């Protein structure tokens, strides 16, 4: 085998056309990254792309290997300085984008181009790590088509690119059913296979396990979705929509913290106002789940804490879906351990003297805890505290400064001050954070709860009634709870754009879009262990495990491949009209004892037949001439084929 193999990818130089397609594919997959990368790196990568394009157009030579290595070393060093690591998720992805540019600078052969195309597949994947939204998916689908068309173009350099693009589309269309089968049946496993980079979940937003002045108002400026809830039947009224999250016990004068929590056996409460619903929770990298107060059942494998939180065993790092039930008016559970009561009364010594004095004053004139509570609520209702998304910064005496100096704040200030006052007055109290409200989508009736609905309220323990919810913000600013954030906040505060009341039509459009996005989240992005099991059960496969799934997957794929092969060959098995006519001719002659010998060509056979059957000699010669012309000549015109068919039909042999 001395001669070079003309199909071997190492041997074939890349044509500028194919390079152009590769660059297009790279631009599509790198574009979303460009917005996340440091500007200098975006500029460098674009320069490398443009450089390679210029080399191809001008038929110039590629830069030397040493120059490319030098650029690589400098760029990697700069990435290190920017991120302080090369192995984090973000820095790793940024390096991949950089390599796509560097690879182009040594791209000469078909093989190099194919490797760069595979790199494109990686870059598609890295985009999905940031967002799996519908627009990203559409963009990445387009990129996939471009990459595939590039590969087809590399394999068929002489073929017009339109045909190659069509082939790429056909291949992807054929691949789609196989992909669907794999997607549905590939056994899903829970959790990561090994430790992820430190910054893997850095970008997730949500409530944290502590609350200090300013951090909820910060969160409330985000329009991002926290979770969605689908109710069976009518959703609860805005007033009832308290979504319980972390419960904060420990106060150091400025910050409230969760402190240690206990898992408690779950005893479903009795009561009225039952709601059954399914929550689709966005990943927030914390273990707690949100439930409408008060939870009456738990999702599978979730647990319950002694302060009424629903928690999962592991942090929620992917969008999660769970079903549960809640009671709007549960019968009160009056039990509480002595230690938790002591904890709910604890305060840092010395701080906030003015608030303490106020609390002492309430305590002295009151007969029981309920009366203290009434006084506190009256204080909040009447003292004209302001509600603002931009609260003034507070110092060490945060409660005093809020209540007596600044006199305006956000829900964290209200709840913090309220719980402080209650404890100072000897009433056990704690802070509860979570979300309040949510918007009902007019299209699919699903309630969407955003980060801007983040809220903090309080619970006090009353002797005869147990823990009771008190919302000091609602007492001071009644509109907060009934109308949502946007109308309660002062005019001029930076309310998220779409929360502004003037933009109704825009909100309508967003409702439609979000209904679609929700379905996408639930059915595509939320397809995990649970959904897979549900689907298999509804298809009649009970107790599925990975063995059954794998067996089903393999057999369906095997059948699929065979069907595809049979389908693609079937269209060939049918002989063309010329061949059909000839076969009919041979059959006719065969019927009168003139079988064609296997090795006999059409000319020899027809001459022999004409000698044997002189009556039909003219017709036989004509048929043979037409057949030879159509088969071996350049003469396959439609009329000629029709004439051949007609003559064979009319041939009469005795």
């Amino acid at each position: 085998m001395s001669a070079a193999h003309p199909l071997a990818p190492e041997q074939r130089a890349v044509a500028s056309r194919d390079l152009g397609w590769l660059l297009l594919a790279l631009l599509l997959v790198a574009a979303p990254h460009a917005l996340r990368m440091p500007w200098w790196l975006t500029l460098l990568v674009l320069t490398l792309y443009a450089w390679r394009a210029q080399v191809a157009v001008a038929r110039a030579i590629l830069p030397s290997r040493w120059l490319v290595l030098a650029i690589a070393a400098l760029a990697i060093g700069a990435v290190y300085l920017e991120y302080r690591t090369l192995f984090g998720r973000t820095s790793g992805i940024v390096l991949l984008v950089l390599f796509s540019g560097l690879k182009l600078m040594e791209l000469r052969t078909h093989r190099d181009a194919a490797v760069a195309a595979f790199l494109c597949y990686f870059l598609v994947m890295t985009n999905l790590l940031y967002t799996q939204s519908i627009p990203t998916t559409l963009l990445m689908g387009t990129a996939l088509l471009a990459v595939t068309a590039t590969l087809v173009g590399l394999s068929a350099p002489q073929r017009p690119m339109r045909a190659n693009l069509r082939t790429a589309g056909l291949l992807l269309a054929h691949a789609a059913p196989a992909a669907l089968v794999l997607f549905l049946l590939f056994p899903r496993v829970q959790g990561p296979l090994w430790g992820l980079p430190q910054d893997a979940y850095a970008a997730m937003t949500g409530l944290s396990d502590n609350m200090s002045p300013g951090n909820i108002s910060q969160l409330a400026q985000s329009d991002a979705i926290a979770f969605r809830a689908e109710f069976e039947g009518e959703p609860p009224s805005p007033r009832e929509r308290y979504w319980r999250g972390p419960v904060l016990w420990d106060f150091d004068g400025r910050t409230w913290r969760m402190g240690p929590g206990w898992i408690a056996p779950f005893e479903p409460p009795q009561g009225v106002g039952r709601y059954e619903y399914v929550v689709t929770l966005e990943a927030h990298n914390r273990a707690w789940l949100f439930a409408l107060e008060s939870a009456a059942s738990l999702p599978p494998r979730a647990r319950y804490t002694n302060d009424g939180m629903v928690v999962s065993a592991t942090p929620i790092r992917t969008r999660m879906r769970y079903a549960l039930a809640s009671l709007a008016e549960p019968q009160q559970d009056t039990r509480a351990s002595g230690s938790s009561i002591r904890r709910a009364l604890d305060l840092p010594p010395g701080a906030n003297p003015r608030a303490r004095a106020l609390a002492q004053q309430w305590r002295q004139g009151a007969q029981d805890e309920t009366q203290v509570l009434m006084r506190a609520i009256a204080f909040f209702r009447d003292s004209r505290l302001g509600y603002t998304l931009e609260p003034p910064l507070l110092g060490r005496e945060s409660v005093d400064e809020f209540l007596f100096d600044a006199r305006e704040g956000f829900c964290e200030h209200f709840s913090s001050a309220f719980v402080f006052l209650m404890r100072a007055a000897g009433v056990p109290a704690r802070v509860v954070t979570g979300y309040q409200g949510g918007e009902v989508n007019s299209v699919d009736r699903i309630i969407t709860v955003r980060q801007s609905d983040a809220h903090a309220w309080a619970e006090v323990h009353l002797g005869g009634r147990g823990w009771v919810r008190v919302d000091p913000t609602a007492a001071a600013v009644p509109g907060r709870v009934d109308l949502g954030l946007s109308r309660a906040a002062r005019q001029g505060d930076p309310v998220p754009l779409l929360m502004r009341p003037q933009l109704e039509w825009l909100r309508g459009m967003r409702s439609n879009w979000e209904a679609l996005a929700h379905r996408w989240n639930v059915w595509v992005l939320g397809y995990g262990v649970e959904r897979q099991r549900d689907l298999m059960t509804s298809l009649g496969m009970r107790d599925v495990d990975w063995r059954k799934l794998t067996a089903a997957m393999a057999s369906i794929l095997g059948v699929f491949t065979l069907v595809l092969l049979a389908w693609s060959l079937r269209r060939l098995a049918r002989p063309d009209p010329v061949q059909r006519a000839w076969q009919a001719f041979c059959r006719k002659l065969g019927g009168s004892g003139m079988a064609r010998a296997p090795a006999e060509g059409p000319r020899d056979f027809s001459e022999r037949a004409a000698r044997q059957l002189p009556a039909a000699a003219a017709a036989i010669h004509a048929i043979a001439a037409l057949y030879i012309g159509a088969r071996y000549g350049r003469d396959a015109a439609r009329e000629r084929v029709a004439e051949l068919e007609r003559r064979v039909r009319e041939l009469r042999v005795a």
Partner: protein
Amino acid sequence: MIRALLAGPRLRSWFYGYGAPERGSVVLGHRRVYILPTRLGWLYAATLGILLVGSINYALQLGFALTFLLAGLGLVAMVHTTRNLARLAVSTGRAEPVFAGEAAQFRLYLDNRARYDRPALLVRHQRSGAQLVLDLPARRVGEAVLAVPTSRRGWFALTRVMFETRFPLGLFRAWSYVEPEARCLVYPAPERAPLPAPAPDTAAGSARTHTQGNDDFSGLRAYQPQDPPRHVAWKAVARTDEMLTKQFSGAAGAELWLDWAQLPTLDVERRLSRLAAWVLDAEQAGLRYGLRLPGAEFAPDRGEAHRGACLQALALHEGA
């Protein structure tokens, strides 16, 4: 015995799905199309493996979707690569005789009866490495001319020909072998710098060499490149725009015997080469010539057919 069985034609024909050589039009049934991943194909598989692990690790549902779409693409590419070759019908055309040392031009007709085109087909002659790549449009017959170098006179059989494709993605290589029944006649290589045609030998019945006999004009025939310019009928050319050559007949033409026995000092192959060169020169000079070989004799004549018959006899001469 097992070795005999393994080497035997039956096993071979079972294994390759055909027995050699094959006559007429050979259809590459899917049973005789082999397919294996290329190195790029393995690299692609490795890429998919990494994408899958990443999807599992980050529980990335769209990552799964991407990985599985690419896996499906690989599967479909396998089918499409097979399809690009399967059911291609191969037949051979006539190969014009050549002189030893020249390349025999084997014509293969690739009949694409499918409704789709078959791009980037490699046709490769296994023994010599002669190869070419061609694109076959849908429902068309393509012609591939394999230039296979020859070295010895006689019949030259085209041996195994490989057809290969990596279309559409280059992840798989599908190939198939055909051993068509096609052969090419190889004339002895004419020995250049030949002796001038030998002197007339009256005893052997050869004739006068002096003239071209332009007295016995017998008609016009189509011009052939080797015709001497002064035999071209220039008047007729001017009239009809067609190159015509005047033909002369009869005893006026020179007659020449090319005789094996005239070259007693040379070995067999050199004798045949010398005779081949003489045949060419005599034909070009427009002489009437005869050829005498041990066991064969061709009466003096001239023209394409006569020249071919003489050269064929030289090519197939089986003298020791």
